[in-house]
């Protein structure tokens, strides 16, 4: 476990800012005044409270499975990939949201893109190629993705057009259980 270097911090913030924009600052200077930090452990980036992080220092690097919330991981090429485990963080701070019709919920949870037919609601003025958090109509976050169309374009799109490209969904907890940091123990 170690703090991120400057380059790593930039990579993480740039990726997060695609979803939560300037709210990245709110992850460092939280509203509840608690001190949180980012830590790297075995290529995974964790967002954790200072208290928990200090406790985790007692555990050797090899045996520390995970701590706090896993935000994502660094690939071998030092690219940062966001993971589904950070969905609660994203849904709290995200700028743009998409709501799914019940008919396409399961399709999305199996890793498919969101088509116009399944689109229930979308935040006004969502630009193209922006990270969005996907909710069901009841308001439960289901995953996240990238918009393939703006809100205006989505209105004109045909029913089979892809509106949001799938990036992560809660179905991954079951489908990729062995890769999930939360299941590392």
């Amino acid at each position, binding site marked *: 476990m170690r703090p991120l270097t400057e380059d790593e*911090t930039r990579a993480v913030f740039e990726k997060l800012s695609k979803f939560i924009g300037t709210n990245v600052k709110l992850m*460092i*200077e939280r509203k509840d005044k608690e001190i949180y930090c980012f830590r790297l452990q075995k290529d995974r980036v964790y967002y954790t409270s200072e208290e928990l*992080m200090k406790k985790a220092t007692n555990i050797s690097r090899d045996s520390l499975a995970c701590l706090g919330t896993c935000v994502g991981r660094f690939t071998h090429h030092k690219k940062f990939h966001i993971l589904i485990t950070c969905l609660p963080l994203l849904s709290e701070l995200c700028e743009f949201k998409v709501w799914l019709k019940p008919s396409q919920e399961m399709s999305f949870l199996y890793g498919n893109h969101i088509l116009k037919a399944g689109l229930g609601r979308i935040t006004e003025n969502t630009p193209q190629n922006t990270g969005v958090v996907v909710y069901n109509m009841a308001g439960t976050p289901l995953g996240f993705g990238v918009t393939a169309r703006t809100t205006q374009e989505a209105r004109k799109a045909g029913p089979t057009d892809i509106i949001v490209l799938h990036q992560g969904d809660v179905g991954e907890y079951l489908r990729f259980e062995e890769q999930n940091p939360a299941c590392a123990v």
Partner: protein
Amino acid sequence: MTSTDVVDAEFGMEFDEGNMCVFDTSTGEDLAPAAQALVHRLFKLERVVDGSLGGMRVVKLPEGVTAIPREKPVPKASESTKWEVFAKEKGIQKKKRDRMVWDEESQSFKPRYGYKSRKSLKDVPVLEHTSDLADGENPFTKKKRAVKDLVEKNEKKRQANEKKSRRKGAAPLPSLVEVEKGPSGKGRIPQKQLAKSAKIAQRSTASVGRFDKRVGSEADNPQPVAQRRKFDPVSNDGGIKVERKRALKIAERIFLPKPEPVQEPKEGPLGKKAKKQRKKH
């Protein structure tokens, strides 16, 4: 087959005598006339008497036209040695000589050279004292030395030949190439570059220059130690504040509006337009 037949048959065919190929682009059904036309052309080529083949008449094929794919480039012919050049000039041909020669003295066959040969000094009890020998000089050692010198000379020539034919692709040390012309007009190697190649040479040993004796004023050239990656401490009291500050700074830098690229006017005050106007006046 008359010549007109050949002309008829050759219609719509492409020949590549070098590769002994013919391509029939017209019909491609009956291939016999194509093959026949190719043979006809091959026999029309100029015939030469080849001495190396015992005076047989041969035909030298022209260079092939069709590009045939090949994994590696065609190996270049090795450069001929100095002797080969000389032999060719004088017309000396290589002849196979017998290893064994008849020796009149011993009335037996002996090897031409080497062990137990006629030239060998092993079984010679006495040698004549010739006039070219100095006082007290041993004729046996003189002969031995002469043989040794000859071997050395041949070895030197062999090395020279090898050096001449060595591939030119291998790069020599950088500075030794970059010869500049000095003030006197002679080529010289700048001191800095010489020092650079000396440094490279110092490390170019099996022990990376570690166990080599230094010569004269030669400076030490230790292997640079790779720097360890350094990370911030995982946790210390002052650390987290510094870390947060730095993180905030990075976040702010990301959200700074990117400066728009400044567009420079394409035509300056003395550009084409201005010049044209000046011409008019």
